[in-house]
Structure formats: structure tokens, C-alpha cells
């Protein structure tokens, strides 16, 4: 998997000439909610969808405290367009989600072990696959996700990972953000898609 910003990469905005870019993103995000609903076994809804341009230095503060202990499930996108996907939870929410996914009573999971990490990785996998599948289906473009990586650390440290590939060419990060909630509203998942800027 290459993270080089490829001059040949198609601009995300030009994906599918018949679609408005925002409509395309919305369709992809709706499909993520469908996938998460199937996975969790209860109706997951899209709370908000935003497209924001944030300066690299302000990213952690924008989301919360840069020292907060968070969980990020990270994937790369490769193919006709390049980018990154990250699913972000607070540690507490991530533990709730593991309970939901494993069918445990709420509060059972108190530490993130290998099984819990694997369940969260799978959530990132599925969310990204549903997003990219919808994009592919609507536009005919080829896009593939990498395997997921689970990071548990300070928010700022997690954000270094997504900032580094972009910061070499731009001070601004373009973030497509969607928030998902399940009916009990104990878990808010922040799903971010970060298109790589096209060089040149």
C-alpha cells in the first residue's frame, strides 16, 4: 500500500461526473449506517454529516482534549482515489461498543484485550467497506481499503498519523465527518474520510 500522493490520482470531486460530490458522500455514509445496523443488530443512525477544512495544528483541539485517551481504527484507501479513513471513539465508548458487538451486558468489558481490538477493527473494516462499495457502485470507480489498524492512545498522538501524509503538501486537512449513534446513545462513532490532496 502506497501513501505517496499520486499525481495521477483522480480528484475525489471528479468521482462520477453524474453525481454531486456531497450527494455521493451522503449516499456512502447512509450505506455505512446500514452496515453498522446489520453488525450491531440495532438501528444505527447518522447524526450529522459535515465536510470541514481544518488546519493541521488545530485538529486535536477541534475534536477534544489532545491528551484524552481515545481509540482510532485506521485504514488507507487506494485505487482511483487515495485517502484515509478513521473511526474514532472515546475509550469508554469503545468498551461499550465491544459489549454491544459481543452481546455482553453493558459494562462487561472494562479493558481492551485482543478480542475487543479485533471487534473494533472489524467495525472499521465494515464501515469503510460499506462506504467504498457505495462509491464504487454509483461511480464505477475502483477503490480498495487496507487492513485496519487499531490505535489506543492520546488523541493528539492518533491524529499525528492522519496529519503526517497530508502535512507534507498542505496545511489544511479536508475531513468528511459523520457521527453515528445507536438507539441507547451510549456510543457515538466519529467516522472520518480524509481525501489526499492531488499533487500538482
Amino acid at each position, binding site marked *: 500500500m502506497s501513501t505517496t500522493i499520486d499525481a495521477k490520482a483522480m480528484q475525489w470531486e471528479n468521482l462520477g461526473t453524474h453525481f454531486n460530490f456531497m450527494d455521493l458522500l451522503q449516499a456512502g455514509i447512509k450505506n455505512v449506517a446500514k452496515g453498522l445496523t446489520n453488525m450491531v443488530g440495532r438501528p444505527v443512525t447518522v447524526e450529522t454529516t459535515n465536510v470541514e477544512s481544518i488546519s493541521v495544528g488545530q485538529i486535536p483541539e477541534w475534536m477534544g482534549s489532545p491528551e484524552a485517551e481515545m481509540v482510532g481504527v485506521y485504514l488507507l484507501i487506494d485505487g482511483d482515489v487515495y485517502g484515509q479513513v478513521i473511526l474514532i471513539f472515546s475509550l469508554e465508548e469503545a468498551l461499550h461498543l465491544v459489549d454491544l458487538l459481543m452481546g455482553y451486558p453493558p459494562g462487561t468489558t472494562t479493558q481492551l484485550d485482543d478480542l475487543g481490538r479485533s471487534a473494533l477493527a472489524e467495525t472499521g473494516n465494515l464501515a469503510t467497506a460499506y462506504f467504498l462499495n457505495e462509491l464504487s457502485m454509483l461511480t464505477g470507480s475502483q477503490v480498495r481499503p487496507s487492513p*485496519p489498524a487499531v490505535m489506543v492512545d492520546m488523541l*493528539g498522538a492518533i491524529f499525528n498519523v492522519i496529519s503526517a501524509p497530508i502535512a507534507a503538501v498542505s496545511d489544511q486537512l479536508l475531513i468528511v465527518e459523520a457521527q453515528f449513534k445507536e438507539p441507547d446513545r451510549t456510543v457515538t462513532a466519529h467516522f472520518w474520510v480524509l481525501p489526499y490532496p492531488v499533487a500538482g
Partner: protein
Amino acid sequence: MPDNVLSVSIGELVVSNNQDDVLVAYGLGSCVAVCMYDPTAKVAGMIHSLLPKSAKNNGFEKQTAKFVDQGVPLLVDSILKAGAQRQRLNVYLAGGAQMLSAPGFSNSLNIGARNISTAEEILRATGFRILAQSTGGNSGRTVKLFVGSGKITVKTLGQGEVTLSPELSFSKV
């Protein structure tokens, strides 16, 4: 004495000679913080850099502490202007963790290690010796430099907050 926190965000350079100030870089992952302190003049400086080297013709007009190779000379310039003397400067380095260790992410992503080696090279080439460092590993760090005392602390989620000193120097890549 009240602590007056000055946050040093990604790409920023902060220098202070106010004894109540604490320079803080929160949540360093692969980023590095280069810290300098003149114990006689009680002047402190810190940069928070994200990437090792700036590419040529990268479209950025100004030199920026976002890149280690540009940030270190900027830091030296600023701290000397603020009253520090070069031969008295104590130099510390922190950060440069490897945040991604999952299979499928190539080693070229190990920006943390490249940030550390670039900082070490530039500091050595310009005649500075690193007094103590907390670098590498897989955990994010918060680094504080207290202007009044010159004390440096490093905090991780696993190990809490420790004072960085030559005896407690930690480097693992």
C-alpha cells in the same frame, strides 16, 4: 507559583523568559518536540514538529517548525534573540513514537523514527549535545518545559508523568 500554560501546537515555535510559563506540547505521537533551555538566563524554547524534512518546492512560502529541519534553526535563532547563550543551552528531545504497528502498513510510514534521526543529525551538525531524551516506543507523550526551573516532564497514558533527566533518558526505535 502559578503555572501559566503556553500550548505548543503542531508546527509552532514558542520561546519564553517568563518564569511562570510552562511550555506544553500535548499528545505527541510520531511528532517530536525539541526543547532548549538556558539555566542562567532562564530562557526556554520548544518546537513541535510533525515531519522530518521539507520537500523542495512544496508550495510553503515560509520556513516553519512543522518540519524538523527548518524548525531547529528557527528555534536556535529565537532563543538566542530572547537572551539565551548558545554554549549554555541544554537540549532535550521527546516524541517520535511508532503509532502504527499493524501488518499492511509499510515501514516507510515510520515517520517517528525519521523525525528522531533528523533532529539528532541536525543538532549534532550544529554543535549541540542532547542532554536527555524520551523518544521512540509506541506511546504518545505530553512534554512540559517549566521556564522557571528548566524542569522537563514527559507524560504517557501508561506510565504517568516523569521528570526527564540524563539518568532517565529513554530512546527506543
